[in-house]
């Protein structure tokens, strides 16, 4: 038989009987689902790679070797290299506080952590303009001290921090809550220090959930467009990330070039979902212990 579906214990699929549909209905539903996913996911995905090579391999590599493209790639990698570790550490710290202790207004705190998911990317950029921009709260002070945040790299990092803020935390909080605190308490009673408890007991328990969050956080950090677009100022070679560079090329009628850069991000997306599926396969750990037993 086939491998079990991603999350839960394998379920035996009945091929006939009173709790399934006639064969032709089944085939009709499968076909409809495949057509829907094909039109919305598969065709656009293939189109990215087809578009990238529309003007030949030469143009593809010429675009990728262009100094502007290289600088965009570097900025995207730099942003992710700052944002992902910061939000990763925050996610672990927040999950530790929320999952291992009782305190009032815990639900409100959890909701606040999720808040960035509900905010439009454009607004995520706007709020930093209102704080650090020329007309913002700290604007005059920043200008007086000659510090640039908006229309510079720090703004891009801040906006990306905001949009990827909840990814790791929201993965770890339910996981660590489900695991409870008994294992850590046992470690403490047996004489382990706080750090030892974390490194030897907690971290091995949450590693798959953590990896899962980091993968998603990284994908979003590298691909963010709206928020970064507001704070970047679009200075080519300085504040253009890869998604912004795609827009520049596309609006410059170099659609093959835009798709060439896009193909790198599409490849990253494919790696991301492959890794995600792999982690989910590993991660009975992603789920509460009682489900682990049945799996």
């Amino acid at each position: 038989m086939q491998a079990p579906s991603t999350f839960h214990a394998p379920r035996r699929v009945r091929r006939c009987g009173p709790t399934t549909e006639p064969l032709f209905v089944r085939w009709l539903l499968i076909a409809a689902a495949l057509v829907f996913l094909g039109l919305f996911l598969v065709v656009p995905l293939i189109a990215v790679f087809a578009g990238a090579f529309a003007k030949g391999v030469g143009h593809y590599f010429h675009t990728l070797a262009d100094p502007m493209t290289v600088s965009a790639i570097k900025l995207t990698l730099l942003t992710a290299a700052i944002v992902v570790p910061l939000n990763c550490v925050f996610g672990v710290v927040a999950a530790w506080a929320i999952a291992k202790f009782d305190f009032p207004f815990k639900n409100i705190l959890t909701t606040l952590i999720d808040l960035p998911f509900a905010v439009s990317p454009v607004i995520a950029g706007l709020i930093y303009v209102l704080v650090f921009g020329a007309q913002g709260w700290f604007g005059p002070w920043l200008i007086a001290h000659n510090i640039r945040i908006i229309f510079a790299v720090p703004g891009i990092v801040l906006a990306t921090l905001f949009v990827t803020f909840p990814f790791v935390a929201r993965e770890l909080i339910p996981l660590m809550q489900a695991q409870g605190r008994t294992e850590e308490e046992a470690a403490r009673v047996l004489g382990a220090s706080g750090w030892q408890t974390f490194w030897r007991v907690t971290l091995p328990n949450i590693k798959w959930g953590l990896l899962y969050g980091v993968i998603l956080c990284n994908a979003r950090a590298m691909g963010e467009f709206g928020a970064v677009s507001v704070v970047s100022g679009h200075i080519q070679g300085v504040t253009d990330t890869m998604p912004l560079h795609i827009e520049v090329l596309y609006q410059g009628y170099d659609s093959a070039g835009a798709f060439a850069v896009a193909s790198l991000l599409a490849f990253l997306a494919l790696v991301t979902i492959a890794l995600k599926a792999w982690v989910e396969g590993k991660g009975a750990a992603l789920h509460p212990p009682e489900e682990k037993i049945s799996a």
Partner: protein
Amino acid sequence: MKKFKVLPGFKLTLGCTLFYLGLIVLIPLAATFGKTASLSLAQFWRAVASPDALAAFRLSFGVSFFAALANLVFGLLVAWVLVRYQFWGRRLMDALVDLPFALPTAVAGISLAAVYAENGWVGRWFAPFGIKISYTSLGIFVALTFVGLPFVVRTVQPVLEEFDVEIEEAAATLGANRWKTFWRVILPMVMPALLTGFALAFARALGEYGSVVFISSNIPMKSQIVPLLIMNKLNQFDYAGATALAVVMLVISFLFLFAINYLQWRSSRHRVQP
């Protein structure tokens, strides 16, 4: 309820969490509301109730609603097929559902615009019937359906997986046919998850910017969504107008967040005691 705390680091971790949350999320959001407070009511009203703003709100809500609705129907279908049927390529299909989460919106935008253009791979099949997709509101619908696609599937899937087949067997024993079982037994059980997914997809579609700018013609009053209007106001240095619109959108988003949390709380309660 006072318990002796065995585990260390409560004050440290909670302090760090609150500090970082405040720095990155709460203070900037508060700044936005503070900025709005500095506007006069007339200024605020002029920005929010101007004809182009009203047209943008109408378009954003209308198209997002229909995109979320399409996701509701097809998301349920995809989740059902993935959970209940075995077929070749099921695992691949399951993994692919997450593509909109992983694919940057700008990439999705240029790709969908190309595929659904009049001479594109999909668009050319609609062109003979006089249906244009890219650069119309239908194009915005396609982009918003794309970005919201995983939500319904991923909220409904676990509920269907946990679904006790014995209930369906009972329905069959009592004489219900499959269709009746679906409407009267399965659908009510899935409903909270379905609504959660709908609300998530709706909320996501309302805020979406990246994919839409490429596939929409972005004509003011006609095909300009709210995030794009905010962007245009920013580019014209109309910070007051942009902030006023942003605050309206933020309030709506927060209402959605509460609704979603409520639905999730209900659906989890539902699942504990079926």
